[in-house]
């Protein structure tokens, strides 16, 4: 439910009296700590529907030592700590629960080192995803994970959410591109997990940390793999009279032994919104369009392009191959502005995220249309079809009475349909608060207990980002302020 209550963030006075703030200022300096209402308000929500959070003091460290000092102050005062990147997360991961000290990484935004020979960069967590790629473009390299939010989201946030993007179909999600992470633990200790050598010793705690949604520690330095730009790239736009034909094309392309760099699908409603907004040249009449990209070496790419086109035509599709870089950029611009295009239609939107087996795409899409129509909502579909990652996007106006409840109910039904066909709760946006209470749909109590053990290995007191991911029965509620503020999930 979209709750706009601000029970705790109702003024700055409360925090000036806070002895913890004085200590933070002593440790970091006045200009790196903000306890006023405006700063705390800005940190009280992310891009998700969840708006019930309340932030404590907000810190802006610029070094590992600062983050360590914050953690020590927090331990002395038994306060929760919440790392925050750009706040573009869609599951409430950066929404503050339990009055936490918020650690904003915006000032930790330097690329520290680029090793061209080993194709590795050490970056601070606040570096914006696209900025890193821009910086290494002259070397013929890029950072492969490319979330649609890449102009704003941080690499620290990408690591915490194990984020994906269109090109992760061929290149893998964030985890496959992180070699090492320097992490400040809740004790204030800094540890380097993973390493630049081939086989770092011990358990893969680097892998455990990636996707830990800010609950295991704060990443203060990240060594990411840089990927050479492909020699050749071709982008195809395929349009179909039915969603089923488009989905069948995806299946046939994958089954043919091709691994395209990206396979994205947009339905008719999405195409209309995009065309009104950026005029990408998508055919308005089509029931569904596919944006398929193949990359690699020149001659192989030519063969792959031909093969994709043939498969598309065999399924009744109309095929257009981008003639030049300009046309290719326009086709991608359409895809990347889809959310913005929909946002123009209505003031609020809820962007869902589930994964289903590729063979169930048609069945689940039909169910999605049925559900949103039944709740009298509008949904557009624009998603990573190549790996079955659905993103139904519901646009609405939260001022309309009862609409929040309808969006929540429809969202829940879409989850249920996805799980019923063998899918999972989230493909890239994470669990956060949004889906926390649905974890029991997918995991048994014993499964969740194992996840809780992993978290406790890193953070025995559950100081970091409490109240997320694990349903309350499996999270330790040691943080007094968290148990005091009873928080419901987004969908109640």
């Amino acid at each position, binding site marked *: 439910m979209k709750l706009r209550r601000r029970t705790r963030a109702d003024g700055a006075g409360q925090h000036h009296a806070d002895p913890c703030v004085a200590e933070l200022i002593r440790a970091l300096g006045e200009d790196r700590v903000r306890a006023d209402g405006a700063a705390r308000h800005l940190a009280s929500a992310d891009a998700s529907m969840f708006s019930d959070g309340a932030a404590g003091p907000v810190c802006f460290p610029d070094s590992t030592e600062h983050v360590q000092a914050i953690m020590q102050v927090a331990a002395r005062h038994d306060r929760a700590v919440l790392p925050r990147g750009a706040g573009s997360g869609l599951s409430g991961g950066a929404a503050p629960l339990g009055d936490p000290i918020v650690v904003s990484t915006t000032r930790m935004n330097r690329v520290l080192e680029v090793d061209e020979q080993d194709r590795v960069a050490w970056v601070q967590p606040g570096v914006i995803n696209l900025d890193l790629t821009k910086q290494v473009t002259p070397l013929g390299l890029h950072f492969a994970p490319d979330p649609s939010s890449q102009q704003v989201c941080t690499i620290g946030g990408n690591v915490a959410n194990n984020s994906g993007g269109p090109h992760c179909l061929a290149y893998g999600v964030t985890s496959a591109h992180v070699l090492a992470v320097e992490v400040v633990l809740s004790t204030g200790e800094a540890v380097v997990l993973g390493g630049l050598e081939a086989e770092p010793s*011990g358990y893969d705690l680097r*892998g455990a940390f990636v996707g830990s949604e800010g609950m295991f520690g704060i990443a203060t330095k990240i060594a990411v793999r840089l990927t050479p730009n492909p020699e050749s790239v071709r982008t195809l736009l395929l349009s179909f009279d039915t969603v089923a034909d488009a989905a069948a094309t995806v299946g046939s392309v994958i089954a043919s032994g091709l691994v395209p760099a990206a396979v994205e699908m947009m339905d008719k409603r999405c195409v209309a919104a995009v065309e009104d907004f950026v005029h990408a040249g998508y055919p308005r009449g089509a029931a569904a369009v596919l944006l398929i990209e193949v990359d690699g070496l020149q001659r*192989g790419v030519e*063969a792959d392009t031909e093969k994709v086109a043939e498969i598309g035509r065999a399924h009744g599709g109309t095929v257009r191959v981008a003639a030049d870089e300009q046309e290719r950029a326009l086709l991608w611009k359409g895809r990347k502005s889809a959310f913005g295009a929909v946002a123009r239609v209505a003031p609020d939107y809820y962007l869902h995220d589930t994964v289903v087996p590729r063979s169930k795409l048609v069945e689940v899409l039909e169910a999605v249309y049925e559900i949103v129509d039944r709740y009298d909502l509008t949904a557009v579909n624009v998603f990573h079809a190549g790996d079955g990652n659905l993103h139904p996007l519901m646009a609405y106006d939260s001022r309309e009475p009862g609409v929040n409840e309808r969006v929540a109910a429809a969202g829940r039904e879409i989850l249920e349909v996805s799980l019923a066909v063998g899918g999972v709760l989230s493909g890239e946006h994470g669990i956060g608060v949004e889906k926390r209470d649905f974890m029991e749909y997918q995991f048994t109590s014993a499964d969740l207990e194992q996840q809780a053990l992993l*978290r406790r290995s890193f953070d025995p007191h559950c100081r970091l980002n409490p109240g997320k991911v694990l349903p309350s029965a499996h999270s330790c509620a040691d943080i007094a302020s968290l148990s005091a503020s009873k928080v419901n999930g987004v969908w109640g």
Partner: protein
Amino acid sequence: MIAPPVIDDTALLAFAAEIGSAGPVMVRGGGTQWDVGGAPDSDIREVSAPTGIVEFRPDEMTVCVRAGTTVAALHAVLAEHGQRTALPDGSVPGGSPASTVGGTIAVGRSPVTRLGDGHIRDAVLQLHYVAADGQLVTAGGPTVKNVTGFDMCRVLVGSLGTLGCIGDAILRTRPRPEHEQWAKFADAEPETVLNTAKTATAILWDGSSVWARLCGHRVDVEDDLVRLPASYEVPPPDLPPFRWSRRPKDLHRLPNETGRFIAEIGVGVVHCERPDPNPPPVPASVAALNRRVRELFDPNRRFNPGRSVGQL
């Protein structure tokens, strides 16, 4: 309310029952990497993981396979649909036809094709394993993309069976390339091959010669062989038994203690005749975190007592 899928595979349930909830136990796979992490204590009850392919879904590019199945047997079935996994079978240098899926995952070492095929941990989508309290649990999920909950699979890959006993796995499959071959480049610099042979999925160097496994479209492999003169279709070298871990760029600065060596260019693994005299040190704080993980997951040290993960 929707409930999690019930595990009804009787082979898996029997495996869990055999492991039980008390007493030291270890799972034996193919026994091909038994030396890794030191020998387990003697007189420990040995259990074998169940075998067989549960479900191969060529259109999803996933396969569910019980842990005791050999990678070779798995790949034979996947080959019928022109697919395989990143796990090593007997056909790559260093691989063995006896290696099991569970053993390969538990040891967590990628084959020499890691350069092109990625680390084997990225092929593991879901695991069923028996936890120290005897419960059969699920890590990860069945789909090719998934961030639901913490990434438990990553922790189990390379855990040498010390955190849980792996019963089955859902793995990502990949298409077999149209063409693949090994080629030998007699006098080439390894970096030249790395930067020029775009279809290489493995590059090996013994200090003088370079071997590369070239994979992909036939035309692309042909182009590589035009760019780089090679002796065609030369089998790859055998790998010496010990494994050193280095940064890729440090492979030119190997000490004299290696004896004969084969280095994985672009990856950093070096196969040597002697053990590494100076393995990269593990800081005390990282070692402590590793110990805490093991203590929490297996408080009574039931699993593989005596064996240790890394030099911890």
